[in-house]
């Protein structure tokens, strides 16, 4: 049974690709067979975050157009045996993706025995974003605790509830999860940033993960190593927890409280 998970947000730059790469790695490191697909046609980036940019020969659109087989286009990860990347095409043709083409590729992945297919959605609500979510069973909605991100993700929730195959067929709905990124416990404590409970209350979603703001995300993308593999990082631990929750385990939230500070630090600030 293959589960299709879309990683989406509406707003750009909130961490969809970082999240897709890390969740895919996390699932694969638990022995699951995982494919992660970049739906951002024209702006390929997942390959860089995964560190396989120099091994892209064929892409998603090549497969859809029958210019190569799916096997030829799937890039096998060098670190994890059961992880595969399907890169986005760099074409400027906005209609390069078709509903039938995407469905055909997903069905082939199902037949190949993949446990999970992660669809890394582009920002916005255009065709690429629509097709990334259309066949999903579950959705990870990536949100920054910031007004425009929260509002845009609510827009996306509306689309998940109406413009997906599950919703249109009337047999069930996409299971939605909230994943907060760039979370700063210190700023939340100071009343400068909305907290987990605030965002949860506004959107009415269950929280699958809270990823703290960290410089580790940039250094991971610089290196082309998904940040979940940086084992001494809180970001990696937060993503590992999110993977566990996706798999149905109950894991308490971490990294949401401000680290304790001494009396003098609190008195004089800083």
């Amino acid at each position: 049974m293959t589960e299709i998970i879309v990683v989406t947000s509406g707003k750009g730059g909130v961490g969809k690709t970082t999240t897709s790469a890390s969740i895919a790695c996390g699932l694969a490191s638990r022995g699951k067979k995982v494919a992660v697909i970049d739906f951002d046609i024209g702006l390929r980036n997942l390959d860089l975050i995964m560190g396989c940019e120099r091994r892209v020969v064929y892409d998603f659109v090549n497969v859809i157009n029958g210019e190569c087989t799916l096997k030829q286009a799937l890039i096998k990860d060098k670190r994890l045996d059961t992880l595969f990347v399907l890169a986005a095409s760099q074409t400027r043709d906005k209609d390069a993706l078709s509903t039938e083409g995407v469905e055909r590729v997903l069905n082939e992945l199902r037949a190949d025995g993949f446990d999970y297919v992660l669809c890394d959605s582009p920002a916005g609500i255009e065709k690429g974003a629509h097709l990334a979510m259309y066949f999903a069973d579950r959705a990870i909605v990536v949100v920054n605790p910031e007004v425009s991100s929260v509002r845009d993700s609510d827009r996306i929730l509306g689309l998940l509830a109406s413009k997906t195959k599950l919703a249109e067929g009337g047999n069930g709905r996409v299971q939605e999860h909230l994943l907060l990124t760039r979370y700063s416990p210190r700023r939340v404590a100071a009343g400068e940033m909305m907290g987990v409970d605030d965002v949860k209350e506004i959107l009415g979603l269950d929280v699958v993960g809270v990823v703290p703001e960290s410089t580790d995300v940039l250094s991971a993308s610089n290196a082309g190593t998904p940040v979940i593999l940086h084992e001494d990082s809180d970001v990696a631990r937060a993503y590992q927890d999110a993977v566990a929750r996706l798999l149905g385990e109950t894991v308490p939230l971490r990294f949401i409280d401000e680290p304790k500070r001494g009396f003098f630090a609190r008195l004089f600030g800083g």
Partner: protein
Amino acid sequence: MGLLDLFRRQPPSAQVAKERLRIIVAQERSARGGPDYLPLLRRELLEVIRKYVNVDPEAVIINLERDQGQEVLELSVALPEKVRGGKTAAAAKA
């Protein structure tokens, strides 16, 4: 937060953000799935009302509620304080 901040505290900005989002999200959710003419209807109603009373564009709230196969279109107009004391609401059924 340092000692000095205790004496010049403003409402936390996160609280402001949450309140603004709560309102806009509720409003956008109620418009979702509704007929496409609602924004236009709202604009035209606003124009008509403004012929008589100079209300704020944000003072006109249109809500569509579905209840057991029956749809209720609720229109609420907050009049400016100078015209009348408080808030006046008018409801129309469709």
